[in-house]
């Protein structure tokens, strides 16, 4: 018998007021696999990630993460999720170390782990500076630290390498890449980069699933239409 999928969506619908942002989206992601979600701005990628992160409620359909139904069992999965979105979720007047210590305490993680993740992204030297004084790339590295601090089983990554230079990308990529061993949902405006990382590809067009397939079977024209 196949193991249950880490993430399962069935007929997912989400509206904001009159506007339907996700319509009847279904997908299944095995544990340890990477799903790349492609689509232009406003296609519903970030909304999908926020629903999976338990920050938004679906209006219809079924969502299961790590076998737990959302939103009813949201509390049970939060400890095992990591969301890296457009906002780093860091307080600008606190230092990187203070921010990460705060997150470590919220997640019940030993404070020593903060030093490990800072070391991993090459930010120990700058960790005592207020976040508002750091470059966007450095803030993104701290955001990655926040996400991996509690060793999540599911990584929800919205443009994770944005603002990072090649050197920083090399440091960060293994932490949130395939080597992390986590199930990953990845969005990117760069379809080629996303396809290279993915085991499955979901194309979103106007909130609908235009296709869900393996990267090798992706119709290049269909991808082109998503961004047209």
């Amino acid at each position: 018998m196949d193991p249950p999928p880490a993430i399962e969506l069935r007929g997912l619908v989400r509206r904001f007021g009159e506007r339907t942002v996700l319509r009847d989206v279904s997908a299944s992601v095995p544990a340890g696999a990477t799903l790349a979600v492609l689509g232009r701005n406003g296609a519903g990628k970030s909304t999908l990630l926020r629903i999976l992160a338990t920050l938004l409620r679906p209006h219809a359909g079924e969502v299961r993460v790590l076998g737990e139904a959302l939103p009813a069992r949201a509390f049970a999965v939060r400890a095992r999720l990591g969301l890296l979105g457009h906002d780093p979720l860091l307080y600008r007047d606190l230092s990187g170390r203070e921010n990460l210590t705060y997150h470590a305490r919220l997640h019940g993680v030993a404070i020593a782990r903060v030093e490990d993740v800072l070391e991993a992204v090459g930010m120990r030297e700058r960790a005592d500076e207020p976040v508002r004084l750091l470059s966007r790339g450095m803030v993104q590295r701290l955001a990655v630290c926040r996400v991996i601090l509690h060793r999540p089983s599911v990584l929800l990554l919205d443009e994770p390498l944005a603002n990072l230079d090649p050197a920083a990308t090399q440091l960060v990529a293994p932490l949130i890449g395939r080597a992390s061993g986590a199930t990953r949902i990845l969005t990117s405006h760069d379809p080629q980069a996303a396809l290279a990382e993915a085991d499955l590809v979901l194309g979103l067009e106007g909130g609908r699933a235009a296709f869900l397939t393996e990267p090798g079977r992706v119709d290049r024209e269909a991808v082109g239409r998503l961004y047209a």
Partner: protein
Amino acid sequence: MREERAPGSWRTTITVLRKDLLLELRGLETVPAMVLFALATLVVFHFGLNRDTVDGQLAAGVLTATLLFAAMLGINRLFVAEREQGGFDAFLLAPVDRSALLVAKALALFVFLAVLEVIAVPAFGLLLLGTSLGPPLLGLIAMLLLGDVALAVIGTLVSAIAVHTRARDLIGPIIGLPLLMPALIALARGIGPLLAVHGSSWPPARWVLILALYDVVFALLAYAVFDFLLED
């Protein structure tokens, strides 16, 4: 090494409170503004009433109004960092009891109000009060602390509602002032006799009980509804 379970409510409360106090120490945005506003209000009362001193119920009204106006500044700013810097999402992503955010924010506001009063009440004594603060000091502190609980609990609840709206600077006072009115009346009536010439040293029990009861009722109400305010 990772600990096996999520932090308890009290530990989460302390974590959020510590972060809020640290943010205020770094930014000095809220408490100095509250103190400045209170001092300016006392000066306006001093000249507006055209009296060198006030006492009794008039003094209680002046002090209560001054503290209320200053408190509204703190209430309006209570969730600003959470809204502008992603603090809400960060908290909601953690496997913690959401009520801890209510308790931590109410405690932070309570601390801000206490610091405000440490400066504003002596200033009130110097600028306006026609009687000594010495004899009724304990009773005054007790009533102010009960008033602070009402301001902190209702203020946190209102601020959590207002922060998600577009007109948040208006919504806070519009919802908050009517809800706070009974507590403020009890506070003013309670401290009036303390500030009278040859007044009593302890507030009337009736107003102490009313204020305490109001605190308890709103603390329970806030605890019951706060989770729903954090839902999308």
